[in-house]
């Protein structure tokens, strides 16, 4: 079961990622990315991170990608134009990526003690404790401070984006 599921959804994931690169219209790329994210959510489920799978779908695919889509439609971004390329990107970048991939795979292949996944394995030793309980148990006790800080972070991000997107350069505020 695991293997079929893994192969299936990993395949969808890869297909979506490649499609992201191949599409010329940004809306198509956005939709491919949504596909990638949802398949990743399934993979999280397989790895026993149920809460994260849910968060992935709700936050990532449901909020962030929707935001992307909104912006694409707002700016009416059309198909990509042919512009002057960057030679450095090709000459320097591609080999770098290739090396990166090679290194990563080498490291992964030679790392000992990587076991196999157990479908839906729990995180704690306590029988019956759900993933959510374990997660929140740590999050609200030991890591409370970072948790609160992130709320401040989100607040700042809200303020920032409102300030940036409200008035453009040289434009008056609409209707103010």
């Amino acid at each position, binding site marked *: 079961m695991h293997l079929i599921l893994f192969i299936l959804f990993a395949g969808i994931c890869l297909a979506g990622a490649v499609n992201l690169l191949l599409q010329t219209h940004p809306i198509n*790329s956005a939709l491919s990315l949504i596909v990638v994210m949802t398949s990743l959510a399934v993979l999280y489920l397989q790895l026993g991170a149920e809460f994260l799978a849910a968060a992935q779908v709700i936050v990532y695919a449901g909020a*962030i990608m929707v935001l*992307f889509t909104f912006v694409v439609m707002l700016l009416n971004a059309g198909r990509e134009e042919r512009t002057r390329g960057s030679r450095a990107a090709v000459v320097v970048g591609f080999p770098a990526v290739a090396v990166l991939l090679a290194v990563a*795979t080498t490291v992964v292949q030679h790392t000992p003690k990587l076991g196999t996944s157990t479908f839906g394995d729990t995180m704690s030793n306590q029988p019956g404790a759900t993933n959510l309980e374990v997660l929140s148990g740590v999050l609200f006790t030991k890591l409370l401070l970072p948790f609160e800080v992130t709320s401040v972070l989100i607040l700042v991000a809200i303020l920032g984006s409102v300030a940036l997107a409200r008035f453009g350069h040289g434009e008056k505020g609409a209707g103010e």
Partner: protein
Amino acid sequence: MNADSIQFFQQEVPLSWYLLLSAVLFALGVVGFLIKRNLITVFMSIELMLNAVNLSFVTFAHQWHAVKGQIFVFFVMVVAAAEAAVGLAIIIAVFRARSTLAVDRIDLMKL
């Protein structure tokens, strides 16, 4: 299906496969960053890179039964959300100034 193939398909998945997938996704994200010409698409490649890293974290959390890996993914998601909001706001501002979303055309510091 015969018994062998059923048995094959009931095997557990080696964790290294997850990590390989993560690496490939990350590499694809970098490539997308390098070759895409639309600013929004470039930003999307960044998100792809973040997701790949998330997968890696969850895999290791599974490996070592450490919930902290999952918590880190949680935080990554939060930060990615904030970053996406602010980044897109910047893109909107840039679009208003330059009227173009082509990455190659936006090469001056002053808007």
